[in-house]
């Protein structure tokens, strides 16, 4: 939509040397739209701050103001993707595509736990449980 432009302003800019990143508050003005996607925001920030790899930019916790037209959120730009992988929480890495989500079946985990309740000590090895599981079925 080329009718109304999206304006991005950053506030409270701080270079966090301890975590090797730059952190700031982002104000996005988007009159007429509901909100702006994070991908477009990352592109814009990459051009604004001359970031080589847009994978090292993380934007999160966006809230639209009352009445619409303006949203505020937080942004981080890491020095490198390795630093990002070290310091960022897992869910944000998954959102950026730098990590994979491990699908753990809750039912399997609970069954395993309940089986382990009946045993004590070293006997709680996988082989034993799998066999028991097979037996039970």
């Amino acid at each position, binding site marked *: 939509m080329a009718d109304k432009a999206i304006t991005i302003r950053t506030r409270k800019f701080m270079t966090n040397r301890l975590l090797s990143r730059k952190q700031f508050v982002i104000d996005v003005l988007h009159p007429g739209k509901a909100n702006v996607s994070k991908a477009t925001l990352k592109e814009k920030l990459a051009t604004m701050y001359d970031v080589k790899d847009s994978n090292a930019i993380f934007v999160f916790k966006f809230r639209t*103001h*009352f009445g*619409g037209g303006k949203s505020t959120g937080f942004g981080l730009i890491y020095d490198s993707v390795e630093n990002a992988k070290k310091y960022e929480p897992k869910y944000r890495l998954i959102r950026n595509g730098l990590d994979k989500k491990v699908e753990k079946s809750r039912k399997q985990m609970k069954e395993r736990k309940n089986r382990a309740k009946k045993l004590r000590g070293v006997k709680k090895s996988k082989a034993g449980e799998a066999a028991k599981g097979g037996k039970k079925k």
Partner: protein
Amino acid sequence: MKAGLDAVTSKVEVLTEKVKADHFPTADGISYLEAKHLLLLNYCQSLVYYLLRKAKGLSIKGHPVVRSLVEIRLFLEKIRPIDKKLQYQIQKFTRVDTTAAEKIGSSDKEVDATQNMDDLLKLRPNPDMLESKTSAASEDATGVYRPPKFAPASMAEDKISREERNALRKEKQALRQARQSTYVRELMNDLEGRPEEVKEFVGTESRELTEYKEKLEDRARREEDLFTRAPLTKLEKKKMKHMKKSRNGLQGLTESFFDEIKTLPVEDDVGGQITGFENNVDGDRKFKRRKVVQDETHHKNQTAKNEKGAQAYTFWQIWQGKSQNIDGNRHYKGIKSSY
């Protein structure tokens, strides 16, 4: 210096021979003070040797003198608490010694003084020495009566009277409300020549809405400061939903100019305490427990099986079913109409 060194070595040799000949038996152990003395001497010796080596530029690494220094230091630190415990006795002895020395060459006056010191050293509680509060106070040299000082005197200089306190509070509240009212804000904007803000809103904004928005902004400011977000509680979500419901811009219609200025202090009439002006002072507390305080006459009227007949209930009480004596304690719970 060589002569001194020779003298010292000869003396030391004599001593060592004596020790070897068992002249100083330590079978019963040494007294604490002697031991401390020896330790300190040893420490000083080792220190001197250490400094000598350092001054000559020789290496100190792994030399047994360092180890001995550390050991002796450790011992000294360990016996320090014993020192503290014995301090009182040692002080007593040293004081007595000095007073004894004085006694030898002194006049009668001084003897009395030292005897007093001795008595103090005995240090058993002496009830005769206690001063009674009353006796000391009432007798004054010039004959002026001074009351005895039993309790601390409180300085009531900073006490603000009730009227002054109420006036202060009123001022503060007036200031606060003036800041919030839109009329005053427009005035201020005009006076200060601020640029006009055009905010996008539908219809007229109600006061409720502006207050809500201010609260949200305040919250947002704090969140930005801390770089985190506080989660919205259920009540807050409900309120947000309630506010976002579009009422076709008719929210602010029922508010008038009078509503805003009635809270500002125009007349200076009362010196009484300020009460809350809002209808809903406690916010979302729906079922507020009310303490029923009955004075005696009211109580009498209610409990006395009235010979007069029907009591005088107000219309509202009957309608809302609050009274209990209609139809023999039947509560009209369901009928609660808000007018």
